[in-house]
């Protein structure tokens, strides 16, 4: 069956059965990171720097080690030396070396017989600091006289004479900017800033690690990627990755934040030092907020030229993003590439600076870089639309990218669905609702690349004709269901007859994490390939039985059939019949597939939001919210909607209230959910969705990743809506009530 022959008319794809792990997750049985325990287990705790930037003069663990029940203390001195590049930064972030680089940076770790003893022991570890000047703000960090965080951090891209905290410089573009701006009727530029936000998964990082003196180890951990845990922990500890077996637990949210390591090497290091006893380590919420990956804060300039008819003639962005104290963590490159991904603009300039600051090491957060870029660019598009009196959807349709357009970041787009999302938004009843006083409507579009990535999947036919699929991408939002649906479709068997297992590192080849919106795309595609192997073998077994050529057998509806009249007349042989005999007809039947698939197929979405702003307090109430996004093919539409709604909710939080708040002392002031204000149930309306399906030619069922784009448009859509409601333009996030009220007052 050629891939392009598969069209609609699926049996399973597009249905919404109960998820396979549903029962476990509504009964409390599902085991998450902190739910594992082992015999003879110790508990770990971490000592963290209270300073944003400080030289570590001395660490004295004498008192801690004297406490009854304490079994091991590790500091940087226990880790190998000589690492370079990202491995070194991961190690530095696991345990500070010469300097603590941010408030919350781990300095030492301790293991004891109970969690309470470990916490008491951590307080007894004495660390002497020499406090250094610090910088947490991106623009301040770019000044020539800013405190230097990592001397010599600049790579070859950074021009001579740049500020010492600039680690990387990027620029690219096309056309002739000056000529493009000259062509425009209106040219405007503005400065926008966004604050760092956290992924905010409800499950804190947790792991149980065990490692003997021989360097053989095991780990149970909540992660988006068990192979990344294996690779990174091994690098930090100087051990052999093949000797570390990592089993992923159920995962309580990640959104990119669990694609890397933070404290995970510590249980292994402590275990090794404590004679191989397993060590459990669970972060507190304050530790999660202080010392795991938030996203970058950004300082951005946008200049754009538009003709009276809405044609965008030229645009330029200058983005500065801090990603914490180590190079390589800031998503400024992605932000630049996403900035104009929705637009066909002939003349473009992109300039980006990656800047170090005394903040935690950034991790990926849902479409990393794209929300900030969208906030700046989609706000500017709206500003121009309003100035020229143009409809924001019409302007986006006029300039929108489609199949064959050369993307702002280089390649030509294949089949994409931006235009379809704009048309659907325009046609949706929400776009026609009449608004009242103090109410306003905002529109914005968004983009994410989507990702393939290293993938390894196997499928085994069970003795009763059911199927077991082993995948390496943890199920973070229903991917067991989507992969089981595709497997059922591929094999022609009922959904319930498929079991999808998320397996440990010893069971498959390398898999990248569940990131880049890739689980349903890449594991699904690899599953399809693996199934082809199993189907081929099943056809062969039928051919043997019928004594015909294997090429003369085809597979449909869960059974082998003679390919045509010439093949002979035989009753179809079902998967059940083939499986029942497989031990005697040649042995177990399975298929597997390993690849790094391309063709992930970019994702576009358009959001429409209505707000009401209290003119006396600046409080913004979201009245209604619409997400329209291209899913390629929606495998399990309910979970596709879930991704849209969840992304929108996170974007609404980022836009309105969430922010990392640092004091003058460089300490994080809000490492608690009370003051890190994520949306609660009463903050939001129902979130309306429209699933647009423009099949991705790069996937056997047309799948595009749906996980990330949804967080991108809310930031500018809310800013545009608040402007429509109040006349005040908010160019700084978060747009919390004090900021909105101040903006209303400032406009007079």
């Amino acid at each position, binding site marked *: 069956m050629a891939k392009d022959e598969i069209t609609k008319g699926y049996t399973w794809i597009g249905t919404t059965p109960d998820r396979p792990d549903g029962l476990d997750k*509504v*009964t409390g049985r599902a085991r998450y990171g902190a739910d594992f325990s082992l015999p003879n287990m110790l508990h770990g705790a971490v000592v963290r720097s209270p300073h944003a930037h400080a030289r570590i003069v001395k660490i004295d663990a004498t008192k801690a080690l004297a406490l009854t029940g304490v079994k091991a203390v590790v500091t940087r001195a226990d880790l190998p030396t000589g690492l370079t590049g990202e491995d070194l930064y991961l190690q530095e972030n696991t345990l500070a070396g010469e300097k603590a680089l941010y408030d919350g940076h781990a300095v030492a770790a301790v293991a004891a017989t109970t969690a309470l003893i470990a916490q008491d022991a951590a307080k007894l570890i004495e660390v002497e600091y020499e406090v250094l000047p610090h910088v947490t703000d991106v623009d301040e960090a770019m000044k020539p006289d800013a405190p230097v965080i990592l001397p010599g951090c600049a790579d070859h891209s950074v021009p001579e004479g740049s500020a010492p905290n600039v680690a990387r410089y990027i620029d690219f573009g096309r056309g002739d900017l000056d000529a493009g701006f000259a062509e425009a009727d209106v040219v405007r530029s503005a400065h926008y800033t966004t604050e760092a936000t956290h992924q905010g998964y409800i499950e804190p990082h947790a792991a149980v690690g065990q490692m003997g003196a021989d360097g053989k180890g095991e780990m149970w951990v909540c992660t988006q990627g068990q192979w990344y845990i294996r690779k990174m922990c091994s690098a930090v500890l100087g051990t052999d990755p093949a000797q570390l077996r990592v089993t992923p637990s*159920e*995962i309580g*949210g990640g*959104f990119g934040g669990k694609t890397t390591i933070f404290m995970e090497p510590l249980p292994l290091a402590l275990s090794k030092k404590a004679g191989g006893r397993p060590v459990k380590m669970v972060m507190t*919420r304050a530790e999660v907020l202080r010392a795991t990956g938030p996203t970058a804060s950004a300082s951005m300039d946008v200049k754009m030229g538009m003709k009276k008819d809405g044609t965008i003639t030229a645009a330029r962005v200058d983005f500065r993003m801090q990603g914490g104290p180590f190079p390589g963590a800031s998503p400024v490159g992605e932000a630049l590439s996403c900035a104009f991904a929705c637009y066909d603009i002939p003349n473009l300039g992109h300039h980006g600076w990656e800047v170090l600051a005394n903040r935690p090491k950034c991790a990926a957060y849902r479409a990393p870089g794209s929300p900030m870029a969208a906030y700046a660019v989609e706000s500017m598009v709206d500003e121009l639309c309003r100035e020229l009196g143009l409809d924001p959807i019409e302007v986006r349709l006029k300039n929108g990218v489609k199949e064959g357009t050369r993307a702002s970041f280089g390649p030509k787009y294949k089949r994409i669905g931006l235009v379809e999302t704009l048309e659907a938004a325009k046609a949706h009843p929400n776009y026609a609702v009449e608004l009242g006083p103090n109410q306003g409507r905002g529109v914005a579009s968004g983009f994410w690349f989507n990702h393939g990535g290293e993938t390894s999947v196997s499928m085994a036919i069970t003795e009763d004709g059911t199927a077991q699929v082993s995948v390496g991408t943890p199920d973070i939002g229903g991917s067991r269901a989507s992969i089981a649906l595709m497997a059922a479709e591929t094999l022609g068997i009922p959904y319930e007859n498929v079991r999808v297992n998320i397996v440990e590192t010893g069971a498959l080849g390398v898999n990248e994490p569940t990131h880049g919106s890739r689980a349903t795309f890449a594991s699904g595609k690899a599953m399809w390939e693996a199934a082809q192997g199993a189907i081929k073998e099943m056809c062969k077994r039928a051919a043997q039985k019928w004594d015909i050529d294997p090429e003369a057998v085809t597979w449909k509806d869960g059974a082998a059939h003679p390919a045509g009249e010439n093949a002979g007349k035989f009753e179809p042989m079902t998967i059940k019949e083939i499986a029942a005999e497989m031990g005697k007809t040649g042995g177990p039947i399975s298929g597997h597939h390993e690849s790094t698939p391309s063709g992930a197929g970019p994702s576009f979405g358009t959001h429409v939001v209505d707000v009401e702003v209290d003119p006396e307090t600046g409080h913004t109430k979201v009245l209604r919210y619409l997400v329209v996004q291209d899913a390629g093919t929606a495998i399990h539409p309910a979970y596709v909607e879930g991704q849209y709604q969840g992304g929108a909710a996170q974007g609404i939080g980022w836009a309105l209230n969430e922010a990392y708040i640092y004091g003058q002392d460089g300490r994080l002031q809000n490492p608690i959910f009370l003051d890190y204000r994520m949306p609660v149930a009463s903050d939001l309306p129902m*979130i309306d969705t429209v699933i647009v399906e423009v099949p991705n030619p790069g996937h056997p069922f047309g799948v595009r990743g749906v996980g990330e784009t949804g967080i991108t448009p809310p930031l500018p859509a809310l800013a545009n809506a608040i402007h429509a409601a109040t006349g005040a333009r908010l160019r700084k996030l978060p747009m919390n009530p004090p900021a909105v009220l101040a903006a209303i007052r400032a406009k007079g």
Partner: protein
Amino acid sequence: MSRIHVTANVNGDEVEFLADPRETLLDCLRDHLGLTGSKEGCGTGDCGACSVTLNGRLVSSCLVLGVEAQGAEIATIEGMAKDGDLHPLQRKFVEHAALQCGFCTPGFLVAAKALLERNPDPTETEIRFWLAGNLCRCTGYDKIIRAVQDAAAEMRGAA
């Protein structure tokens, strides 16, 4: 630190455990009784993942000391399905795809059950405010609210 002997009734079963006075009820449920369905998301009463009922009242078990549970009746997620039959809320959460990662789900279910026992026909606004202390970062709450509404309707019909 001397530990204190505590006896309580959890999900209808008499249980006993030794609690350090600093341990929360959540710690005791998870670490001493092996009831890991209640989750710790914040430890400060802001996320609701540890929701249980204590003598019939909905509480965050991270804000109750284990020693305070002496003689108390406690209900956790593990006791919500009766004799293998899921509570309507549990079924509706699965049916409506009201969970993605599922970590907040036990807390939402326990809290929603407490709501429907007091108010069998809550409005959307009442549901949203009752559940405002249960954080979900995956769903945007939409499908959770719909699942609660649907379960309430079914329970009213069945009553």
